[in-house]
């Protein structure tokens, strides 16, 4: 699904007749942006810079103060078709905001209700969704989603949305609180859905290496506008941009660049530690000067 934002601004203060309201700058300021179908888009920025607000605009939870949001060239807000937003899957910043049923099974299956599927298929789908978030079906299906650990809640929340097979998936800091295996599994799943179904994925993250590893495009939000928009590798090795956020360049990029400078590698992307080690040892071995 393609998304287009035309001149979108947003402010939480309602317009009042009195003057005070326009003193505060808007949270989002005149955004112009197109997100193409099948992108893996990461969004980064300071706490409180408006990332969650931006995502809520895309899901229709909030309506822009000015400008419009187009989903596949239709503006659901002005054309009174809010059901278009139903194609968007949304995972909240706090999983508690997402859970409401009395058992994990019911919670995950909630979205399947309207489809009127036979019981076995429903169960199968739930089982599969729980599998991808690494929750054991038998152990968890009858437990209350509120009596789980933080990471387990997060996984239930993700499963409940993934099971719907949306056309656009929005995740607000999905990896906060997840351990490594579930993070890996989550991204494996996202990549798979992205490649096989052409699903558009948008997520917020504070982990720069995660962005470098998984995003095809990065939007960096500051003072209500996207001050950078492009491939994560180039964006995150741009000293000026890093400076303006106070970020440190991800180690993978630093090392890869150094290896490039030394002519050890020619790839202009990023290297995992193993790849870097391989390249280094290869070159050292080639030069036959490995001192023992």
């Amino acid at each position, binding site marked *: 699904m393609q998304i287009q934002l035309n001149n979108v601004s947003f402010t939480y203060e309602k317009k009042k007749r009195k003057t005070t309201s326009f003193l505060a700058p808007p949270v989002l300021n005149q955004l112009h942006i197109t997100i193409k179908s099948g992108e893996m888009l990461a969004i980064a920025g300071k706490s409180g810079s408006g990332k969650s607000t931006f995502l809520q605009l895309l899901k229709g939870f909030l309506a822009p103060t000015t400008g419009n949001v187009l989903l596949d060239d239709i503006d659901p807000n002005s054309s009174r078709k809010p059901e278009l937003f139903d194609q968007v899957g949304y995972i909240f910043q706090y999983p508690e905001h997402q859970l409401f049923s*009395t058992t994990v099974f019911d919670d995950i299956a909630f979205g399947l209700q309207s489809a009127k599927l036979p019981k076995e298929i429903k169960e199968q789908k739930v089982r599969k969704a729980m599998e991808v978030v690494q929750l054991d079906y038998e152990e968890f299906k009858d*437990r209350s989603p509120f009596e789980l650990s933080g990471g387990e809640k997060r996984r239930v929340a993700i499963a409940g949305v993934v099971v719907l097979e949306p056309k656009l998936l929005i995740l607000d800091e999905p990896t906060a609180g997840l351990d490594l295996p579930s993070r890996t599994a989550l991204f494996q799943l996202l990549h798979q859905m992205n490649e096989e179904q052409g699903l558009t994925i948008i997520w917020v993250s504070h982990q720069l290496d995660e962005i470098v590893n998984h995003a095809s495009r990065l939007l960096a939000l500051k003072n209500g506008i996207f001050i950078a928009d492009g491939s994560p590798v180039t964006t995150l090795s741009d000293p000026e941009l890093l400076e303006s956020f106070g970020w440190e360049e991800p180690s993978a990029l630093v090392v890869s660049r150094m290896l490039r400078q030394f002519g050890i590698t020619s790839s202009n992307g990023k290297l995992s530690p193993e790849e870097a080690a391989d390249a280094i040892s290869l070159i050292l071995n080639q030069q036959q000067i490995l001192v023992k």
Partner: protein
Amino acid sequence: MKPSIWKWSTRTVVTIGIGAALYGATSWIGIPIAPDTQLRPAIALLAIFGALFGPVVGFIAGFIGHVINDFIQSGTVWWGWALGSGITAAFMGLIYLSKDFNPKDGVIKKKHLISFIIYGVVGIFVSLAFSGLFDIYAMGEPNNKIVIQVISAGLVNLAVFLILGVPAVWAYAKRNRNNANLTVER
């Protein structure tokens, strides 16, 4: 074990506070069924609160919830009706006092349901009679108008209590029975 009805732990204080807020918040939801009469699901909450936490907690939560809701919606409090909300919840909470009733552990029997319904029905009409009399004496309201109001409000509340409140308590208890069975080892 059920805690005593007079215990004022932090937990109780907070539960009453949030219960009151909940009653107030759901009072915002109303489905108009006839001019001047609304189906307010909030009354079902009083039932759940009374049944789960007893008459005292129910009374205070209902009373405070009503007061606050009145404050916010119009800036005025109709004390008679607020006390009435409390009384309704207190009556529904009488079920809490019967010894083997324990919805938190999933213990609820047919006879409980019957007495629960009786308490509820009595509660609804006692409280409305009270509110009506309160209005007549304290606010100098004309009484024939009040009588009509009391009867129609009573019927509506009764319907909500029977359609939403009773099944909700039943569902809550049933859900806990399932859970309890699952977690017990032998």
